[in-house]
């Protein structure tokens, strides 16, 4: 197991390196530059390029950047907030984004799981239908529509939560965005949990367990849940990624000072370092989540655990 994890971590590092290189090349291919200001003349522009090292060949820039990255230096912003180190720029924004995202995953996974289990256990009843309707809405309606609807109803009309982000009430401000972001995750998990659970409940080993005389509660907790949860963990990881992209728009709607809105701004103004740094962080989070999912898989599914040990 330890060997397996080590292998995965090393692979992850190389993947991240490759992603950074591709990002570098893509940034160069993008039309325009951070110093497109009409007021600047050729000489000033050239001196700016020289100052930030942008006149050097891309491969040199890349290795310099990676070298700095290992020292925790992600470069400075060229445009949005001139000469501010990016680490400083995101240090306040990243926790907010992660907080909102984490709350969304948590709400989505838990509510989705409960909804799916309810639908499976009360199969072909009103509860099942209700859960199905909620799931269909959650999957088909984009998160920004929920964001607008929630902010109108609970922010504007009922005034339960602030409509826009307020530094005075950070917790309250993140409730609506978290919920609107969680809808898709919740709906997908609910649908998936329902079908997995129904399959598990109809399996031979559940019948055998039932024939042992175990109580319903014990059947669910010691046999059904674990078997139904394994496939659910697999779908959770890609859902987290969907959530990241969803957060770009939702952060804008609630004007949350998170990394999502920063990334949108950076792309619009060709602020190379910010785009690269944030894309890198997103990729790292994604790879990290996949790694965690794989390790969790090994913990709850003995079939995989043993196969890995044999590796």
């Amino acid at each position: 197991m330890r060997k397996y994890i080590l292998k995965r971590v090393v692979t992850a590092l190389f993947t991240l390196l490759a992603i950074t290189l591709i990002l570098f090349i893509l940034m160069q291919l993008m039309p325009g530059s951070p110093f497109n200001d009409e007021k600047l003349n050729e000489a000033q522009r050239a001196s700016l390029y020289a100052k930030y090292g942008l006149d050097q060949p891309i491969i040199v820039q890349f290795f310099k950047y990676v070298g700095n990255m290992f020292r925790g230096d992600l470069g400075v912003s060229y445009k949005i907030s001139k000469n501010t180190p990016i680490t400083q720029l995101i240090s306040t924004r990243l926790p907010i984004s992660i907080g909102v995202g984490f709350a969304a995953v948590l709400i989505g996974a838990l509510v989705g799981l409960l909804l799916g289990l309810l639908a499976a256990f009360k199969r072909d009843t009103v509860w099942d239908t209700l859960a199905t309707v909620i799931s269909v809405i959650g999957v088909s309606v984009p998160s920004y529509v929920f964001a607008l609807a929630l902010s109108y109803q609970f922010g504007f009309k009922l005034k339960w939560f602030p409509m826009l982000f307020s530094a005075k009430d950070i917790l309250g401000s993140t409730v609506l965005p978290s919920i609107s972001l969680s809808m898709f995750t919740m709906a997908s998990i609910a649908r998936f949990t329902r079908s997995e659970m129904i399959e598990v409940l109809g399996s031979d080993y559940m019948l055998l367990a039932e024939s042992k005389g175990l109580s319903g509660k014990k059947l669910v907790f010691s046999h059904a849940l674990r078997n139904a949860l394994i496939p659910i963990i697999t779908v959770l990881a890609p859902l987290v990624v969907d959530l990241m992209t969803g957060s770009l728009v939702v952060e804008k709607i609630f004007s949350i000072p998170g990394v999502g809105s920063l990334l949108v701004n950076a792309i619009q103004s060709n602020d190379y370092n910010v785009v690269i740094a944030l894309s890198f962080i997103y990729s790292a989070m994604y790879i990290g989540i996949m790694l965690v999912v794989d390790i969790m898989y090994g913990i709850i599914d003995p079939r995989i655990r043993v196969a890995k040990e044999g590796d």
Partner: protein
Amino acid sequence: MSTEKKKEKILDIKNLDITFDTTAGKVHAIRGINIDLYQGETVAIVGESGSGKSVTMRAAMGILAKNATINSGEIIYRYRDNKGGIDYDPDLDEGAEWKEADILKMDKAWIRKHINGRRMAMVFQDPMTSLDPTMSIGKQIMEGMIWHYKIDKKDAWERSVKLLEEVGIEDAEKRMKQYPHQLSGGMRQRIVIAIALSCNPDLLICDEPTTALDVNIQAKILELIKKIQKERNIAVIYITHDLGVVAKVADYVNVMYAGKIVEVGNINEIFYDPRHPYTWGLLSAMPDLDTDEPRLYTIPGSPPNLLHEKEGDAFAPRNAYALEIDDKKEPPMFEITETHKAATWLLDPRAPKVEMPAELKARIDRMKKEAENNGSKL
């Protein structure tokens, strides 16, 4: 079988009638079944897929699917109360009073506590799917003991290891920690049997226990069940469609067709003197190496769809010997001997005399001769 002791009846299924609600409509799966079973005895229920064999046994264990409705009948289970011990001890039961309970009238919690696992245990058809893939073998065996008898984990572990040895598994300590996917089909079935035995039941229901296994392992598993049955004086019900298995293990045979028992008798009566045309068909359809027939016999047609109630005998459309009355009235059980009964109008005194097919007759004679030579009961 213990010799002098009087054998007590432990299970008595009377006139059981079950329908299932499906999206297509009501399926009348069990249409009035009577089965009884005595201590230490082996009864086989034989029939094609969908004839209602498994449903009957699930009803007896109180683990029917939710869409099942029991229209009538009783499932009387007889037991002795001080037989609460986890260890098999033949003397413990002596002199204790027999109690009875109608499983159909008991609530689920009572059945779970007193019947499931503890007095009735089940071995399923496919050992590849009947073990929980995410739970270690040891846990799955210990689970029932700890649940029913509240023993501690260490005790349960030791008992489980002993059980595994009893069902013929080597390296028992090591196997306890392993997971089902690490073991072969035959081993898994042994483990299912160990689980079934873990709470010291009086009755083992084996639902096609060897169908999913290859022939070699099949024989070993049957031997194992037989051995355990003898040692622990357990009654066994085999649900199977394989008459070869029946011949090896059963004392009594119930032949089921379309939710009804059409012929019942002891093993000699069913194999040497079958009376129902369906039993003839089943016996003729057994593979036989000594026959001159180039093709294996099959019963023509397919089992009826129980979604539609049909007048008369359900087997009539497939029956080459069907009489006119078969289409109008269901035959009652005609008694041939005290133990042998069959539901076919051919046994009515007014019916024309019909003999079993000559090919089958010849085969039965061969079987008899072979049995005499081998000195076995068949």
